[in-house]
């Protein structure tokens, strides 16, 4: 099938098999290997990208459903040479070791902060009618779909906390 893919503001008219996942298209066809395959089953979060600003596990999304939607991968987070504040925060707080989960953690946290800014409550938000407060509990709950086997969680919480405030 022919699809018009918009990734990091570049247009890619491509032909894909209807069974192909967005993750495979990004990695194998568009040479965007930032999004990682940790499980291919929606269990680890390493493949998280943003679709129209919302976080999506790209191993669970079919490319044919992405026609005309705006996809952002870790390669598109920085503004030219200026890193995204979360990228800078992850470096400052050493919020990774091997870094394999990091592209997913970053895209997920960008999407998460946007959800937060839009006033979306999470299951740990005490008062769902009030504006949520970005405490550690909120960060942990909202980032619990992204595994880090190196166990950099303590520093991930710190990095996101700093960027979010």
């Amino acid at each position, binding site marked *: 099938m022919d699809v018009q893919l918009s990734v990091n503001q570049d247009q890619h008219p491509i032909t894909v098999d209807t069974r192909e996942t967005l993750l495979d298209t990004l*990695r194998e066809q568009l*040479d*965007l*290997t*930032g*999004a*990682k*395959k*940790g*499980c*291919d*089953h929606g*269990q*680890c979060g*390493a493949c998280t990208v943003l679709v129209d600003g919302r976080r999506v596990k790209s191993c669970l999304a079919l490319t044919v459903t992405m026609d005309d939607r705006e996809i952002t*991968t*870790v*390669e598109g*987070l*920085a503004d030219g040479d200026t*890193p995204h504040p979360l*990228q800078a925060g*992850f*470096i400052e*707080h*050493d919020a*990774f*070791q*091997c*870094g*394999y*989960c*990091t*592209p997913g953690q*970053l895209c997920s946290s960008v999407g998460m902060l946007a959800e937060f800014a839009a006033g979306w409550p999470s*299951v*740990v938000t*005490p008062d769902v009618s009030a504006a949520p407060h970005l405490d*550690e*509990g909120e*960060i*942990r*709950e909202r*980032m*619990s779909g*992204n*595994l*880090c*086997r*190196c*166990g*950099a*969680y*303590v*520093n*991930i*919480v710190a990095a996101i906390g700093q960027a979010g405030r």
Partner: protein
Amino acid sequence: MTDIQVTSPVRDGVGASAPRPDGTLKVTGEFAYASDLWMDGMLHGATLRSPHPRARILSVDLTGALKLPGVEAVLTHEDVPGAKLYGVDHADQPVLAIDQVRYQGEPIAVVAADHPETARRACALIRVVYEVLEPLTDPRRAALDPSYEKVHAGGNVVRHQPIRVGSVFEADVVVTGEYEVGMQDQAFLGPESGLAVPAEDGGVDLYVATQWLHVDQDQIAPCLGLPPEKVRLTLAGVGGAFGAREDLSMQIHACLLALHTGKPVRIVYGREESFFGHVHRHPALMRYEHGATRDGRLVYVKGEIILDGGAYASSTPAVVGNAASLGVGPYSVPNISLDAYGVYTNNPPCGAMRGFGAVQACFGYESQLDRLAEACGLDPVEVRIRNAISEGSRIATGQIVDMPAPLTSMLEQVRDLPLPEGVSTDLRDLPGGVANSTHGEGIVRGVGYGIGIKNICYSEGFDDFSTARVRLEVIGEEAAVLVHTAAAEVGQGLVTLKAQIARTELGVPNVTIAPADTQVGSAGSSSASRQSYVTGGAVKTACEAVRERLLELAAKKLSHDGLALSGGKIVSVSGIVVASVAEVLGDDVIEETREYRHRATAPMDQLTGQGDAHTQFAFCVHRAVVDVDVELGLVKVVELAAVQDVGKILNPIALEGQIHGGTAQGLGLALMEEIQVAGGLIRNPSFTDYLIPTILDMPPMRLEILENPDPHAPYGLRGAGEPPTLSSTPAIVAAVRAATGKSLMRIPVRPEHITGT
């Protein structure tokens, strides 16, 4: 060696939280992991694996696979041109199965095709006829019952290491226990991958995620029938390791396919295949008997530790050595009778995982210390203090601990740290959280302690060394250093440390780390918490040699005596700056290569286990605070506190990351992580069913890091990555026991162990 100290502080030198040189690449997505590698025209490899843990192979028919369009090679053991067996310790594992399989997932054939799906479909078209046999899955029988059938002709015991000290095995207070440790998986997030490229000289270039390039080369080359220099390895980006990359996975297969087809071949495992594609942590069956005086002083320890190595030896011998030599823990025990066994079975092969051998034993001896405390009416910290070794004590092997071992003060320190507030009334903080499983009823708080001892670097007489090449030259009018080693950066931050050491030793801020490859001498493995010690030592030594030559050059060029290097400048005896490094160098290039060895270790006596087997010991103490829903068996770890002695902090922020990460993996072993094996079959090869701690499971940590230098080590440092993995597990289980009163003899602790249902 001249004794010249660089006195002026250099930015981002040793002791600073210097940023990772690969950090920017890792946050922008540009860092190339092994699975990201790509070459035009490359083929994709796939592996046909045995569905049976034990079977005879009666026939293999490749016809269907070879006919599939797009398939370029289908290889079996008959196509292995050189040695048919390989192994990290001894060669007992077939590159591809020969007439029989010994574990579920054993590779039988490999395929190269133009697309990964084609390769996988070709595997499915290979017809293998098996005669399925009853798998041998009982490690105790494998260890102790000579009538048990044999997995390998030579017998089922890979290694038996006794410890025999003293002869008094009677005491006023005796506590016993039988403990079990489940099979843990390293579960690195970046699965096994690599790209093999055939070379014009008939050799092959392999880009791969591994822990030790040279030991891979030593195993691959004989199987390919090539001299080692024709098998060149370069480290590709490594998505975590934790021991699982110490053994080969796809390396030989990709090289075989590349040489056979004359094209580059990439193999990338998926998650499920990864569970079958690497060795795991040895499950353990342990029996302990501790005898003590009424006031809790140990008189003797009797023990038996059976480690299930599965189908092939891997690093089982070293795992047994650690379990035996550290089997009574960091305690002074006058009489010991302990036997550690590593055995073959038809279970999944087991080998290296962070803290190997020592992790299993630590759960056993620490559980016993808690039983002893209870039997003597003592506080768990007090009973440990009464028995803890200190500098000058002997461990079970008779080796004297000739470095600081401040266990008593570490225990007191962790005990005296402030405790978190009591059980929360906010249901979001309770076990089960917003699942709303409790509003606080049935929740009990527990506190527990654990302490571990880990040997750092390779032990038992192994020739353990690393090599570093350091080059100093002027690039763009500035002095620049290039550090080249073969040491694998697996996420631990070794590249950062190497740059920090070079900056400190040469005073030059501009340091580049060359990619790790086999064009420089071996660095040894990124395991046993040894790289900052051994490769750090090699970089330091090579820098010292470069510095010496720089000063010789300065003396010659400036006709000046008594020069020194300080703050990156050449200074006179009176401290006056006489030249910059760049001015002295001009067009000259100084390059030095050095090997670094830690002091020699000795084998353990085969009958008594005595001997100075280790070069360094490291210690970590944990305190765990948990809330347990005793009705549902749910555990929430509220806080973990750790005190660790690292000798010297080279990079504070990276070090803390190591302690967090090691602690998290210990938490996983305590509460959730287990490969479920039944009849030799893995039942849960996915992250849906094999659970690793998430950000919600990992609590805040309090860290106290001590710097009591080890006089034998570079900068006085101690390896730091493994010790926290030992002690967090028993601390958490002790806390759950304190909350529930259950004996909890097996890890991971499951809800039904707590509820008894």
